[in-house]
């Protein structure tokens, strides 16, 4: 029985956010609050020869200047483990200010704590560091000769080489091959809220107000870094102003805030500056990919060879898994995927919205378009000929797959059949028009630990559901309110969701598009457990109209339990509780997720279509329309899900045309500001059409939620690049596609 789930409910936190009443982690007002500002390395490689803090320490309002010579040492750095596992989740296995060695530009070298933010910023400028610089490698180009094949990547979860069949032999025999190299610039997340932590010690107990995707990830990571008992730490995340992966792993700043607070015996706020966001919380690494497709003359893929080369840090073998979804999209018997890495003077790269899926599918879907051109086949028809009826790597069935419907509906909306396949044939004044398409897909990955929620109802019939997850701006708190209301059978306005606090029942971090699926499972189980408990109590209560009835025949709606076939027989939760002199009742719900070895392929699929206008004289490309149709399983809230998908598609457009962090010859990011790192503005936004094909999925989680957080971005860049080819006849293999490459 569903009344609330799926409805386009307005955000439960919307009013607090737009009125400013909602307090973000850098806005927590506390008596005696002091402010910490980081001092970062100018050079990418070398050592601190001298750190002169004389002037800084004497500047007005300064309470402490901390650095490698005086920072109290903490515990140990936990291993790199994705925060979806629910344990400590360090963003890199390096903790700063422990010695004088400099591994990358922007590395945190010192921290100034002062009475006010302005005083701390000013004093930070007065810290003088003398460097001894050594040679560095910061780009693919500089490190190409030193590349090595990774044994494992992605915190050890993905092998560096993945094969099925014999790709080399199949490519030799292929009737048609398409082979190209592709380049994607580095990207940064740039959420509107910069990362921030406010730390408060009360004796040996620590409270952290932290902008994080996972309060428990912060808790466990800081516990290990500082060697503090997890039971003595509480992490509160009231609001998060976007993240896109930069708050998915836990970097050093929450622990540094706690160390600073301990040093000055006061609450301390540590907020990263926008510039520091480019070298403190990871990035999507610059990467080169080489893809070879082999096919027969009918367009059936016979072989895929997909190699990636990218820089990682000195400490960790990290590459975003660019080969993943691209290897699962099409039926193809022979496959070879290899991750090559370069040890470079950068921090460890990290999850950035669609980590790997966006870049890998740009490459795969651009190549598929070229293959279609070579074979004189419609690009959509080529994809249908290679439709993967089972998961190609394992042969397992899909838990659900609505891709065929996505293609059909997308093509209908885009009027694809009316498209003249020849490039460069449609003109509108100075603009050449083109239409392109691409497949989309994002894996559904279960969390590594049980997910919990607690449901509590009061004697007046109002209820609260509690779970520790943080809402990073996606609308998950709103969707969970809907799930909780339906599960318990109470009206939405009587249900409150409490979240964003590690003291609440445990969940993993809201990452990998998994948040809605895993938290809704726990919330649903808690709410229905409480419902069943109250029904059982009514059935056992001789004063209840339901006494002695079959509990399976009792349904709850609007807070009232009643027999399914005799709705007149029943009573409200409130009546039951009040009669029993119970002020409240509660139940804990635990969802044990399926293991990674579940014998199903699990993915959210989609189809993307783009219409672009290109002015080839001036090198301008304007996206006129994006159409995306996705199969996300059950949709919990049409409005927030729609917004997630639309936001993803706009991210994809931005990936295609604007975003790129440029490494300067001095080994520093050269455009570390929102003035220089371009993201789209409203004037760039095209008409965006989003539709969902609802599929039933009984494998992934109890409500069949596959996730919408990222899939909207997958394939968008390729659809745009393919549309640019259709407009102009020119292929683009580098992202972003800029004016000079379009001229």
């Amino acid at each position, binding site marked *: 029985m569903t009344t609330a789930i799926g409805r386009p409910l307005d955000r439960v936190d919307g009013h607090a956010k737009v009125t400013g009443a909602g307090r973000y982690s850098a806005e927590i007002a506390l008596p005696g609050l002091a402010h910490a500002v980081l001092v970062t390395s100018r050079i990418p490689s070398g050592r601190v020869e001298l750190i002169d803090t004389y002037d800084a320490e004497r500047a007005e309002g300064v309470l402490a200047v901390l650095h490698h010579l005086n920072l109290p040492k903490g515990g140990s750095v936990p291993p790199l483990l994705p925060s979806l596992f629910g344990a400590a989740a360090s963003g890199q296995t390096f903790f700063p200010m422990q010695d004088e060695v400099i591994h990358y530009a922007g590395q945190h070298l010192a921290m100034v704590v002062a009475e006010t933010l302005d005083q701390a910023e000013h004093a930070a400028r007065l810290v003088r560091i003398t460097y001894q610089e050594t040679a560095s490698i910061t780009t693919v180009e500089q490190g190409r000769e030193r590349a090595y094949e990774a044994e494992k990547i992605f915190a050890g979860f993905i092998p560096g080489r993945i094969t099925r069949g014999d790709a080399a032999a199949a490519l030799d025999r292929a009737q048609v091959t398409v082979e190209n190299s592709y380049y994607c610039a580095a990207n940064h997340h740039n959420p509107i809220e910069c990362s921030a932590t406010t730390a408060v010690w009360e004796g040996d107990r620590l409270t952290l107000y932290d902008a994080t995707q996972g309060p428990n990830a912060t808790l466990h990571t800081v516990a290990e870094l500082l060697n503090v008992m997890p039971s003595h730490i509480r992490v509160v995340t009231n609001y998060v102003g976007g993240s896109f992966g930069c708050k998915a792993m836990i970097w050093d700043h929450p622990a540094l805030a706690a160390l600073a607070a301990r040093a000055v015996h006061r609450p301390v706020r540590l907020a990263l500056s926008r510039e520091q966001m480019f070298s403190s919380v990871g990035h999507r690494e610059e990467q080169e990919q080489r893809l070879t497709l082999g096919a027969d003359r009918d367009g059936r893929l016979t072989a895929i060879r997909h190699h990636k080369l990218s820089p990682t840090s000195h400490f960790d073998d990290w590459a975003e898994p660019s080969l993943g979804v691209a290897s699962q999209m099409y039926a193809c018997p022979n496959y070879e995927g290899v991750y090559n890495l370069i040890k470079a003077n950068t921090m460890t790269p990290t999850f950035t919205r669609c980590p790997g899926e966006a870049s890998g599918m740009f490459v795969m879907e651009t190549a598929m378009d070229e293959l279609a051109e070579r074979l004189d086949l419609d690009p959509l028809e080529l994809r249908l000929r290679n439709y993967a009826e089972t998961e190609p790597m394992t042969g397992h069935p899909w838990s659900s797959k609505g891709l065929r419907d996505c293609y059909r509906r997308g093509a209908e909306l885009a009027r694809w059949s009316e498209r003249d396949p020849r490039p460069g044939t449609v003109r509108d004044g100075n603009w050449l028009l083109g239409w392109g398409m691409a497949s989309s897909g994002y894996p559904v990955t279960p969390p590594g630990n049980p997910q919990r929620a607690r449901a509590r109802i009061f004697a007046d019939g109002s209820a609260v559901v509690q779970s520790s997850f943080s809402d990073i701006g996606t609308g998950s708190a709103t969707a969970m309110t809907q799930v909780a209301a339906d599960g318990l059978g109470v009206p939405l306005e009587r249900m409150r969701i409490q979240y964003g606090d590690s003291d609440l029942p445990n969940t993993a971090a809201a990452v990998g598009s998994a948040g809605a699926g895993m938290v809704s499972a726990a919330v649903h189980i808690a709410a229905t457990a409480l419902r069943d408990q109250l029904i059982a109590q009514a059935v056992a209560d001789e004063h209840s109209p339901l006494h002695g009835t079959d509990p399976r025949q009792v349904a709850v709606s609007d807070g009232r339990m009643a027999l399914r076939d005799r709705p007149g027989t029943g009573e409200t939760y409130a009546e039951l509780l009040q009669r029993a002199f119970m002020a409240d009742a509660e139940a804990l719900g635990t969802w044990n997720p399926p293991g990674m070895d579940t014998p199903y392929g699990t993915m959210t699929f989609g189809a993307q279509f783009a219409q672009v206008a290109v002015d080839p*004289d001036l090198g301008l490309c304007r996206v006129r329309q994006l159409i995306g149709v996705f199969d996300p399983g059950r949709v919990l809230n049409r409005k927030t899900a729609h917004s997630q998908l639309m936001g993803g598609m706009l991210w994809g457009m931005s990936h295609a045309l604007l975003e790129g962090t440029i490494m300067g010859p*001095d080994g520093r990011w050269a455009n570390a500001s929102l003035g220089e790192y371009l993201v789209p503005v409203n004037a760039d936004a095209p008409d965006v059409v989003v539709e969902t094909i609802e599929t039933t999925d009984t494998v992934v989680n109890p409500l069949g939620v596959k996730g919408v957080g990222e899939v909207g971005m997958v394939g968008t860049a390729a659809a745009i690049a393919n549309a640019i080819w259709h407009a102009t006849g020119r292929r683009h293999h580098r992202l972003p596609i800029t004016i000079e490459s379009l001229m």
Partner: protein
Amino acid sequence: MRPVSYSRVTDVATAIATVAADPTSAYLAGGTTKIDMLRIYAEPSQRLVDINALPIDHIEVQPDGAVRIGGLARMNDVALAPVVVDRFPVLSEALLLGASAQLRNMASMGGNMLQRVRCSYFRDAEASCNKREPGTGCGALSGVNRGHAVLGTSPHCIATHPSDAAVALVALDAMIHVQNSAGHHAVAIDDFFLLPGDTPEREHPLNHGDLITAIEVPALPAARNSLYLKVRDRESYEFALASAACALTVEDGVIAEVRLALGGVATKPWRARKAEHVLRGAPATRETFARAAAAEMADAVPQPMNAFKIELAQRTMIRALETLTARGAAS
């Protein structure tokens, strides 16, 4: 942020006297650049004198058809003033294509003329920059220089002048009116902006305490057929990679009057006199436009990342001239 002191003045004489008396002081108008510069330590002022209350924000039509724009007139107010929209569409467009609506509501016209370059080496207080700290070298020469200039550069500085409005005003031969404790004078706008040469730190002929009280745009009937074409990476809120301010009249297929200036490619708002020379009196054809554009860019000096600007600037000029020619023919 470095500590600064702040005071507010309400009349021009006091404003000038206050700033002139203290070499560490500066005028604060819209503050849309100044405050940023202070925050990133690229600006040494220690005392801000707020001049927003001064009565120099009017837009007035002179008897001879000129328009006098107060130094404190806001970008949006100028852009939307009917007289500007009617008689100088190039200026209205240049203003509206600059910055964002919020910034245009704050930023003053005088401040726009004095805005600092966007070069990231200038804005990074610790980088080498001859403009910020003479003699330290130019980080952009060997650095990331895609957005830098190809015209008017020197071995000491290649920073692009960022203003759009100034490009239109250079095409329109505007005069900058300046007041100081000694009195009032006016400077032709093309002389107001200086090439970097050996002294990139000197961007204009103002002395400390000089105040821009007005910008006067002389009457120019040809400017009714004018436009500002701006080419940039995104559709709004971004500086030009190349732009053209252009006014044009064609009589019997021959170019009678033409004004052309370039933005986004030069170290100052760039009057394209070589192109104008080719254009004036020549047939209004694509061939003429291409020849004129090539002549203007003949001496351009590319940097490793911005050679495309030489071609882009030519195509921008050609497109602007073609558009105005077509418009003129249609009216």
